[in-house]
């Protein structure tokens, strides 16, 4: 494997993804990420000079909707997704700015 993922990197990626990994999982993730990056490197071997980066597979552009209200009050259903609700709102852990 050409790409070696350091402990710091896996720690950092874990923080970004809000994942707590066990030591075992960390080792496995390091290997997985390394082989993924190896694969990406393979793509890097191609000459892509002059090729526009592509973000969509199909040549579809300009999909719009008109500015018309189509949704009504669906709070009851939406709140079914809340782990807990109070006063018509989603309850989350206390959060400060």
């Amino acid at each position, binding site marked *: 494997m050409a790409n070696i993922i350091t402990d710091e990197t896996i720690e950092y990626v874990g923080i*970004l993804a*809000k994942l707590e990994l066990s030591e075992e999982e960390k080792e496995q993730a390091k290997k997985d990420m390394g082989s993924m990056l190896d694969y990406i490197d393979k793509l890097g071997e191609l000459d892509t000079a002059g090729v526009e980066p592509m*973000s*969509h597979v*199909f040549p*579809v*552009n*300009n*999909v*719009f*909707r*008109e*500015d*018309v*209200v*189509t*949704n009504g*009050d*669906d*709070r009851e259903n*939406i*709140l079914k*997704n809340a782990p807990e609700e*109070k*006063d*018509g*709102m*989603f*309850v*989350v*852990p*206390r*959060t*400060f*700015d």
Partner: protein
Amino acid sequence: MEKQYETVIGLEVHVELATKTKIFCGCSTAFGGAPNTHTCPVCTGMPGSLPVLNKQVLEYAVAVGLATNCDITKYCKFDRKNYFYPDNPQNYQISQLYLPVCRNGKVEIETEAGKKFIGIHEIHMEEDAGKLVHDEWEDCSLVDFNRSGVPLIEIVSEPDMRSAKEVIAYLEKLRMTIQYLGASDCKMQEGSMRADVNLSVREVGAKEFGTRTEMKNLNSFKAIARAIEGERERQIDLLESGEKVIQETRRWDDNKGESYAMRSKEDAQDYRYFPDPDLVPIVLSDEFLDEIRAKQPEFREEKMVRYKEEFDIPDYDIEIITGTKHMTDIFEAAVALGAQPKKVSNWLMGETLRLLKENDMEPEDIRFSPENLAKLIALTDSKSINGSVAKEVFEEMFKNDVDPEKYVEEKGLKTVNDEGALRRTVEDVIANNPQSVEDYRNGKEKAIGFLVGQTMKAMKGKADPGMVNRILKELL
């Protein structure tokens, strides 16, 4: 010699667009609905839901870009900005990083040293987050997603401003332009226009920028001016005492008049932007841009020139009236209904401004219709009501937008034009006030004022003071 410092300021301005629906779903953007009643799977980030761009958002963003002399990006895309926060249900915000819709613009502002251009780095479209409410009783927070997905544009300036005055002038300019376009009401107090201030100081003549801080939570022009002064001093004090400015985000507390650090660069977030695969690219044709261009309104500068040519009103009046879109709308509509421009202007400049100030309101909050203002002016023109009654009616109009014709009718405020009745009243007043009559005849001109007042009182204010004056002089 004491060191001289220069302040360098750049602004990030968020503007909530005046669309009826959210940026990516058909939920209403109406303000003040009960919590979560304007939500759906898209704006609450449910898996599998798909966003579709509101065309009006694109049109507003392009219109603002054209009005601020930007290059429009003809191939633009949306990107995901990844971060975790409870008000952000998708765990990413849909925004634009790589190909923002507008770039390289500039607007002209007036400064004490003359005209100056402020560069606009870019304008991008994005979605607003939900609102967090902190529960006072239990150890939790509550989320209302009504605001989640409300369309925003973020206007990022170049670091071209050097003082609080320039910042205010730039913000006024943006606000006016966007209001004239009808793209937003730009009310800072209500959060439909929000500004973050990036500020650094450097010694006068220095080539490099100093380390900057970003200040948030500024919700009035006054707070912005105070925060800029406060931050400038804080940074200079640090440098003077040999310390360093730390690059960080600070929160301004306008009550205390000071800021405190929110987060520093060390734990700055890594947003891992990438193109949003759920939203297809936007390709803007020349025809589309021409259409938007053709729809651009008459902006303030053009309006000021035209008013000067067309209407006989003072420059100062023109400046105040064109200073808010809402005022120009009322002015123009009332004039179109046949009211004399000078009279419309007088009502706006006099009673309207007085009542706005008294009630701590902004010109945008004016509720009376131009139709009713034109009717009121017609009532005074025809001498159906006198000046003081007109002011009384206007106060009612200002409060409740009453129809002045109906109001005058219902309250019986019409001027009594029956000369016989008026003559009889004047005769009574003369008979009952011999002292004043004698004073007047002995050359005390002022005494007539008292007699006019007594007559008006007897007529319950519903007489034409000019007529009262004439009859009094005749009988005396």
